[in-house]
């Protein structure tokens, strides 16, 4: 899942995924997968940033929001000399330890040409937010971050809620990872791929 390899789908049609979202464990089945190749609609422009300044939080809703039962797997790279904190949800920075957060930046591509350490997932509208800083001594006319990856259509058991905001109901929901694994072992042949969705606070 996080090997040093080019991006791959989370799982193939017919296989199961366990979304770990804000310490919830939800099981779905993949019905359909298609790629999202690198292209200009998937380039976020955070706008001009003055020397040494930080831009306002950028909401990726127009680029990365998915249908309610769709799961996106993305990798990212910057096109301008910025470093950017990635949050998901907005108040919670990703890729962090107790006291630090890694950032998207120009050096990542040099160490990691396939961007595998920038991988993240978006389920429905659980989008990411970007906060970019210009570390240089000159103003940047634009601050671009590019995304590419895969879209997966997930199936649960049904949709719940009003039609305009219906959410897919997971095949199963677990309170913790032990119960998910125990269920997998008891349900013959049903294995799942665990998917990190952010939201796991410290």
């Amino acid at each position, binding site marked *: 899942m996080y090997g040093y390899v080019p991006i791959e789908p989370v799982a193939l049609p017919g296989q199961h995924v366990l979304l770990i979202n804000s310490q919830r464990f939800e099981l779905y089945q993949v019905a359909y997968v298609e790629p999202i190749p*690198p292209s200009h609609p998937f380039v976020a422009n955070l706008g001009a940033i003055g020397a040494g300044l930080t831009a306002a939080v950028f909401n990726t809703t127009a680029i990365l929001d998915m249908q309610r039962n769709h799961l996106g797997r993305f990798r990212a790279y*910057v096109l301008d000399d910025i470093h950017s904190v990635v949050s998901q949800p907005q108040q919670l920075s990703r890729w962090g330890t107790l006291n630090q957060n890694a950032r998207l930046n120009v050096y990542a*591509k*040099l160490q990691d040409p396939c961007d595998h350490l920038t991988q993240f997932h978006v389920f429905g509208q659980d989008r990411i937010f970007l906060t970019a800083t210009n570390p240089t001594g000159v103003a940047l*006319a634009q601050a671009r971050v590019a995304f590419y990856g895969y879209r997966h259509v997930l199936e649960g058991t049904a949709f719940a809620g009003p039609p305009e905001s219906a959410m897919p109901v997971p095949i199963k929901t677990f309170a913790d990872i032990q119960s998910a694994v125990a269920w997998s072992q008891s349900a013959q042949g049903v294995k799942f791929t665990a998917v990190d969705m952010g939201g796991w606070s410290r």
Partner: protein
Amino acid sequence: MVSPIDFKHGIRDHTTLVSLVAAATPLTLYLLPAGRTCRLRKLHVFNGQAGNVLLEIGTGLAPLARTLPRIFLVPGMELTLTEDQLVGFEFNANITVQADAAAAAPADVQVRGEVEVYQGPTG
């Protein structure tokens, strides 16, 4: 594989062949698609003037804002600058060019180049 000196790679494109026929009158060398940026990777110029010419490269037409040092051309001089000699300034607007002396062909100053164009959110 990305080389240690470039954290991003673009596509190569060529500029138009610009014929400067009037002194200090900028013309567009490369029309940059909206949202993209580019670096000049090769420059080929010819001075058809009988005198020395100072060539300027920059952005904007009224006036041109120079982004690279001026290039000195003696009469009849043909000059090719490649990536090794050119500073990799990143343009975020159309590249424009002007000469301090020029006249109708064959006394014009001709310029053509190649650019590396980076992806943007549009175009």
